[in-house]
C-alpha cells in the first residue's frame, strides 16, 4: 500500500495526482509549476545536502568562493583552523550581500553598506564606531553572525545543508556510497578542481536536467547520436539502434534517488572493443585500461584506498555517469582522443534553481591531483569539448530542456504525463559485490523513477 501524500496545491491538485505512483507517470505540469517550486525551495533545497565547491578551490585560510544553495547565496570559506564554513551571504543588519566577489581571500568580510564585519566562519566581529554600539544596545554579539549551514566534506567535495538535525551525509548517500567512493575517494591526494566552474543559464525548470541526471542512458542513442556518427563510440551511424553502444551495463540506484551507470569500456567504445579481460587479474586489467582519470602510476593507490571488491569493479565495469539527488550530474567518462593524449573527462554539474523557469548550470571540471600537468591539460580540454557551455554532448541537452518546459504550460499540454514504464526491476547480477538497487542489462527507467520517488518523499514531509 502506498502511503498517501498530504501535499495539496491551492487548486486542489494533490502531489499524488502529479507523481502518479500507481502507473509510474509524472504530470508535465510539474516542469513549470510556480507553487510547487516554492514548496521545493523549503522541502527539497532547504532539507537535503547540496554540492557547492571543492576543497582545492580554497586551500588557504581566508580563501573563499561564493555559490548558491538554490536561491540562497552563500560564502564557502576556510578559517584559520583549516575548517570549511558555509554561511549565508546575507548581512543580518539590513540584508546586503556581505561578499560581492565570486572568489578571493579575505581574513575579514566587511559589509560595504554600513560596515558590519564577520570572520570566515561567519561569526560577527563588530560594527564601526564601536562606542556607539551600532549593532544594538543589549544585543549579544554571538547572535549576530551570518547564518551557518551544516557542512560535510566528502572526497574533497564540499556539501552543505540547512537541515541541521537531518540525516548525516552517509545516510544521505546510503548504499550508493560504495560506488561513489570509487570515483571520489580512490587516490591518496584525491581530485583537483582545474579552475573556477563554468556557469551559464538554461531557461528551464531545474527538474528537467534533474530527472535526466538520474541516469537517463537511453537519450544518448538519439540526442547524442553525433557521438556515434563521429566514430568514437562503437557502431556506425547506420547501426546505432542495432548495436546500441553504451546501453548495456549495470545501473545502480537507491531510495535516496542517487544513481550511477556502470559500463564496460569494450561495450561502449570502438577503440576499446578488442580489449578482452578474459583470464586477466584485476591489476592486469587496470594496466590494460585504467578507469577514466586514472594513470598507471596511480593504480597502486586504488588498492590502498578502496576495498578489493571496489577495485575489481573499477577495473572491470566502472561507474561512469549518474547523479546525486536532487541536482548533481556525475560525468566520469572515457573520452578517447584522436591525438593519443590522455583519455578521460571528469566533471560534475550542479543544476541550481533560479526561479521556476531558469536553472544555472555549474560545470566543475576535475583531474586527479597527482597526475602529470600534461594529463591535466588534456583532461581539461576533453571536458570542455564534451560537456558544459560548448561541449558537443551537452549543447544538445541545453537545447532540449527549454522546449520541454515550454510544453508544460498549455491547458492541454500540462495534463500530459512523463512515462517511466520501461522498468526492469531490482535484480542482483551473479557475483555482484555492491549493495543498493541494481538494474543489469539495457538501461531503463528504474533509476529515474527512483529519483521521482525520492522527490515525492521529501515533498510530502512538511
Amino acid at each position: 500500500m502506498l502511503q498517501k501524500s498530504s501535499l495539496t496545491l491551492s487548486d486542489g491538485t494533490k502531489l499524488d495526482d502529479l507523481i502518479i505512483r500507481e502507473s509510474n507517470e509524472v504530470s508535465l505540469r510539474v516542469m513549470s509549476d510556480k507553487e510547487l517550486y516554492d514548496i521545493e525551495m523549503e522541502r527539497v533545497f532547504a532539507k537535503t545536502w547540496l554540492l557547492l565547491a571543492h576543497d582545492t578551490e580554497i586551500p588557504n585560510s581566508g580563501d573563499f568562493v561564493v555559490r548558491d544553495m538554490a536561491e540562497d547565496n552563500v560564502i564557502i570559506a576556510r578559517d584559520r583552523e583549516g575548517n570549511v564554513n558555509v554561511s549565508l551571504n546575507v548581512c543580518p543588519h539590513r540584508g546586503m550581500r556581505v561578499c560581492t566577489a565570486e572568489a578571493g581571500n579575505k581574513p575579514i568580510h566587511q559589509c560595504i553598506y554600513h560596515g558590519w564585519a564577520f570572520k570566515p566562519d561567519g561569526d560577527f566581529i563588530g560594527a564601526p564606531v564601536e562606542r556607539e554600539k551600532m549593532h544594538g544596545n543589549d544585543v549579544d554579539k554571538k547572535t549576530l553572525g551570518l547564518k551557518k549551514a551544516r557542512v560535510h566534506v566528502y572526497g574533497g567535495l564540499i556539501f552543505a545543508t540547512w537541515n541541521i538535525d537531518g540525516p548525516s551525509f552517509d545516510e544521505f548517500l546510503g548504499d550508493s556510497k560504495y560506488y561513489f567512493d570509487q570515483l571520489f575517494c580512490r587516490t591518496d591526494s584525491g581530485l583537483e578542481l582545474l579552475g573556477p566552474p563554468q556557469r551559464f543559464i538554461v531557461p528551464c525548470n531545474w527538474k528537467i536536467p534533474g530527472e535526466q541526471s538520474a541516469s537517463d542512458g537511453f537519450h544518448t542513442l538519439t540526442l547524442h547520436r553525433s557521438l556515434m556518427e563521429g566514430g568514437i563510440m562503437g557502431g556506425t551511424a547506420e547501426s546505432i539502434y542495432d548495436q546500441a553502444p553504451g546501453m548495456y551495463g549495470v545501473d545502480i540506484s537507491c531510495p535516496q534517488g542517487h544513481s550511477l551507470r556502470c559500463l564496460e569500456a569494450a561495450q561502449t567504445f570502438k577503440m576499446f572493443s578488442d580489449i578482452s579481460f578474459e583470464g586477466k587479474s584485476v591489476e592486469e586489467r587496470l594496466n590494460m585500461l585504467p578507469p577514466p582519470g586514472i594513470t598507471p602510476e596511480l593504480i597502486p593507490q586504488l588498492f590502498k584506498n578502496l576495498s578489493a571488491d571496489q577495485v575489481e569493479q573499477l577495473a572491470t565495469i566502472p561507474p561512469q555517469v549518474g547523479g546525486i539527488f536532487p541536482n548533481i550530474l556525475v560525468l566520469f567518462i572515457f573520452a578517447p582522443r584522436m591525438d593519443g593524449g590522455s583519455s578521460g573527462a571528469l566533471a560534475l554539474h550542479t543544476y541550481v534553481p533560479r526561479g521556476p523557469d531558469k536553472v544555472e548550470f555549474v560545470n566543475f571540471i576535475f583531474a586527479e591531483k597527482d597526475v602529470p600537468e600534461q594529463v591535466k591539460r588534456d583532461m581539461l580540454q576533453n571536458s570542455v569539448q564534451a560537456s558544459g557551455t560548448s561541449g558537443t554532448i551537452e549543447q544538445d541537452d541545453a537545447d532540449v530542456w527549454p522546449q520541454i518546459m515550454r510544453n508544460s504550460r498549455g491547458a492541454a499540454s500540462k495534463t500530459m504525463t512523463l512515462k517511466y514504464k520501461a522498468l526492469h526491476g531490482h535484480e542482483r547480477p551473479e557475483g555482484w559485490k555492491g549493495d543498493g538497487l541494481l538494474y543489469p542489462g539495457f538501461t531503463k527507467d528504474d533509476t529515474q523513477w527512483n529519483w521521482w520517488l525520492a522527490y515525492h518523499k521529501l515533498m510530502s514531509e512538511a
Partner: protein
Amino acid sequence: MTWKTQSTASLDSTNILRGLTSLKRVPLGSPVYNAILETLFNEAAALDERRFDDWTAMLATDLIYTAPIRLTRTGPTRDRDVMRSMFHFDDDYNSILMRIGRLHKSAWAEDPPSRCRRFITNVRVAECGTEGEYEVVSYLFLERSRGDNPENERMSAERRDVWREVNGSFKLATREIIVDQSVLGMANFAVFL
C-alpha cells in the same frame, strides 16, 4: 600561445592583460588595416551564413581557439578577472574541424540552425614580433535567434586575434574570446564566436 594548468584551482596566476600588447600600431585606413577589417567582415558573414568550409579556409592549421571564463573579484585583484585556468572554448584546428563535422550531421543544438548576426566593431590592429602576423582586437556583439522564440539570445565579448598573412590573404592563428559575463545568459555555445 603558451598555456599552463594551475596546480590548484587557485586564482592568482591570471593577468590583467587587455587589448593590444604591441605598440606598433597599424593605423586606421592603412592598406593592411583595411584588408584585415574586410577579412573580419568576411569571416562574420561566413559564420552568419553557415558557410563553414569558407570559414575553415580562413583558419591556420596551428590555430589556438579559446574562451577563458570571467570571474567577479574585488579589492587588489579586482581587475584580474580573466581566468585562463578554465574555458568555455578550449580548441585547436583539429577540434574545430570535429565541431564542424558534427554540424554537418546530427547536432540538434544547431538543427534547426540559429539565425545569427555577428557585429564586429572597435577594431584595432598592431604588428606582432613575427613578420606578417598582426594582433587584431575587436569587439563582438552576437544576436542569436533560436526557433520561434521572439527574444534573441545575445552576448558581448572582446576577441584578441592573431591573423597571419599568407599569399596575400589572412589566416586566423590565435583567437581568445573574452566574454563579458561570468554567468553566461546563453544556454550553449553551439555557435562560433
